[in-house]
Each structure stands twice: as C-alpha cells, then as structure tokens.
C-alpha cells in the first residue's frame, strides 16, 4: 500500500473537534458528488471538493493544508448551498486556510494568501479598503510587477481608483479587532 493512501485511523482528533465545535459535520457526507460537480473552479484543483470533505472526515489535515485547492476555492458557496446533508463545506475551506496560515505552512498557491494579506493590511491601516495601496502592497510582495498593468492604468484613467485612502475615525477599534484578542482558536 502506498504511503499516501487515504484511510481513517491516522487522522487528527483535535482537528475533528474543531470542525465539530463549528458545526461542520463532515461525517455526514455520502459522496453524492454534488459539491464537486457544481464547483466553478474544480478544473484547477489538486483535490476535488468531495475529496476535501472525505479527507477532513478522516482528520487528515496535513494533506489538506498543503493542497492548492484550499487557496483556489473562491468561496462562492455553491458546494455548501447544494449539499443534501447540510455540510458547511465553504466554512470548512475557511477553517483549512486559517489553520494553514497559523501553522505557517507554505501555501501551494503563494499569491492568493499574499493578496488576502495585502487587502487586510489596508483595512487594518485605514479602516476601509484602499485599492491603490492594496494593489501596490500586493505587487511588492508577490513580485508580480507586470500583471494587469494596462487594466490598472485603464481603471485609474476612468476614475475608478482613488488616489487617497478613506480613513475612518474609529481606527483604534479596528486596531483592536486586528490585535488578536479574543482569538476564537484559543477559546
């Protein structure tokens, strides 16, 4: 038997307890395949949506956290909306991404979390998204300097990108939200 065979028994109970506490019942899956067949991004995945659910029910988090799938999922919620057994599959993907970041696992799709981080940094800083700042930060971190140059210029010329950030008064409250206090994972 190959070492990467998928079987129950070796998985993480802590991970399963986490899913249980969030009401994500991965054990309810009977492999009907509706989640995989409706997924708009499926062709770019390395693990199918149904495989993700199965791996999760075996507690095999390591394979999941190293997958491309968790980063390429667009959070469109088609899978979860159509699941006949009410499995919160999109919420499961959220948990997996968050776990991968917390465990400092090198993401199989590096640019995706870099984008999310750049977006969140701009909110942390201003309280509202600042598109030009966010795009600049993303370009620096991802080293994707040339992608969408023409589009960016075009949007700027159309007045769709504001030069100045919109800053809010309650920035200290936003700072508290981002400070890590009351972290769910530590409750």
């Amino acid at each position, binding site marked *: 038997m190959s070492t990467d065979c998928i079987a129950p028994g070796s998985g993480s109970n802590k991970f399963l307890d986490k899913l249980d506490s969030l009401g994500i019942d991965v054990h309810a899956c009977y492999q009907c395949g509706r989640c995989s067949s409706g997924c*708009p*991004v499926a*062709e*770019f995945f390395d693990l199918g949506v149904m495989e993700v659910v199965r791996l999760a029910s075996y507690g095999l988090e390591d394979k999941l956290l190293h997958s491309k799938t968790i980063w*390429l999922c*667009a*959070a*469109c*919620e*088609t899978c*979860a*909306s159509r699941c006949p057994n009410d499995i*919160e599959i*999109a919420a499961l*993907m*959220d*948990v997996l*991404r*968050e776990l991968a*970041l917390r465990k400092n696992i090198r993401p199989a*799709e590096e*640019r*995706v*979390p*870099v*984008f*999310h*981080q750049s*977006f*969140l940094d701009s*909110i942390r800083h201003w*309280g*509202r*998204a600042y*598109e030009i700042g966010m*795009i600049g930060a*993303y370009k620096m971190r*991802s080293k994707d300097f040339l*992608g*969408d140059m023409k*589009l960016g210029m*075009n*949007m700027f010329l*159309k*007045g*769709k*990108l*504001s030069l100045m950030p*919109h800053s*809010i*008064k*309650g920035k200290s*409250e*936003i700072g508290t*939200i*981002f400070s890590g206090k*009351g*972290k*769910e994972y530590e409750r």
Partner: protein
Amino acid sequence: MKMAYYPGCSLQGTALDYDISVRKVCGALDIELVEIDDWNCCGASSAHMTNREIGMRLPMRNLLLNQEPGLDILVPCAACFQRLKAADLALREAPEFWDVPHYQPEFQIVHISSFLASAEIISRIGENILRGLDDLALACYYGCLSLRHPKITGAANFEMPDTLETIVANLGGRPVQWSHRTECCSGSLTMARPDIARKLVADIHTAAKKAGAAAFVTDCPMCQANVESRQLDTVGEESLPVFFATELIAAALSGEYSPKQRKVHLVAPDALTKVFSGETAREERS
C-alpha cells in the same frame, strides 16, 4: 421612507458610479438614505477566508453602530450584504460570545435588488419612468454572494432568483433566458489568478452571447469590474458591457443616460447609449 445606508469600500473606489446611481434612484423614489456614521470595511472575502475572528468582528462593528438609529440597512454590494448578514446572525445567536451584552435589533439588512424588486418599490419605479429600455436584451447576472449561502442571505430562490429580471422587465427591457446567472466569476481570485478569472468570465460571456444578450446587468460591484475587465482580456471587441441595475433605473427615471456615466465603463456601453439616443426606436421604425 428612511433607510440606513452601507455603501462599502467598492462604492468609494472601483464602483463609485454604483454609489452615485443608488443615491440618484433612491432620491427619485423619495427614499432618504442615512449613511452609517464612520462605517468600516466588512472584511469581504479576504477576511472570512483567512481569519474567522476578524471576518466576523469587522462587519459587527457596523451593525453595532446602527443600533442607535435602528433603521433598516440598505446594502448595494453583494459581498458586504453577505458579510453583514453573517455577522448579524452570529450576534443574534450568541452576543456574549462576541463580547456584546445585548443584541436584538429590529432592523433588517436589505439587499438592493430584493428591495428594488419588491412590489411597493417596483410600482413606484414604474410610475416614474420617463424612458423605457426599448426591449433591450439583457443577461441578468447575480453571481454568488447576494444569494449564497441561503442560510445566511435568506434568499428564497437562490438557484433561480428573479429580482433582476423583475427590474429589467419593469423598465421595458427583455431579460434573456440563460445558463450562467448564478455562476461564480472568481472575483476574489482575479488578481492572484487572472487565468482562472479569464476562463470563468469567458464562459459567462459565451453563455450570455449565445442567449442573444446585448449586455449584462448585475448588482455586484466585484462582478461588474471582473466581468468587464476579463472579457477585454479574452474576447476583446466582442465584450458585452455590464450595467448596474440602478444605472438602468437611474437612466429610465431621468430619461437620459448621462455622458459622464457612459465614460466609466471599461467596455463601451453602446447598447444603452443607443436606447437613450433614440437609435433603437428609429431602427425599428425604418
């Protein structure tokens, strides 16, 4: 009628014209909008996809800011709507978990298309139309976040929604039957994986074109920007413009499609310009 208003970040940037059209339409229909004071970003997909705590607490702050005025909150952006609804449900279920002593507000979080397509508002729109859409064939494109997950959005017909079709039909346009009304355009991936966005948007374009649509109409600012821009990357000259539902309503109510608005599209909005310059009516007569 008076409502609280949560424009969200897109409507101050890439979709500034969406904000303008929402305010115009509400002004014309005698709906007073009171912007939530000092609102912050809802966190959008990036927050909830990577950090549940931040993804919940960001939209929660906005809801708590609205507790005092207590007005129903009108939300034009699909992502903001979904995040505010998720936060509202979580707060109602267990306020103490989120360090809020008491949370039982009477206000509702209202997505723009459900609101505009409601019987009362759609009849107000009907009474005030100065210029109809001359049977313009439109592909109503909902995308994801105003509909899914229905447990959060409360959308009754999340697979077969009809609010945009109702609006288009009442403006004298013709909603086409097509396959990709609720398919994802992968807006949250468009910067990091433009190749995926191009594939999804090209499919959405092909489906709309095949159904005979001259343009799209949507209520999602991310879909609007992503579908226009990624069509240009893939089908170029064949691209269809993507209108906001409120852009169409504002034009119909004022009887003109403003020259300023025509210029903000990445894809030339000729389909609508023609209607308002009377060209489509002349073509029919000749």
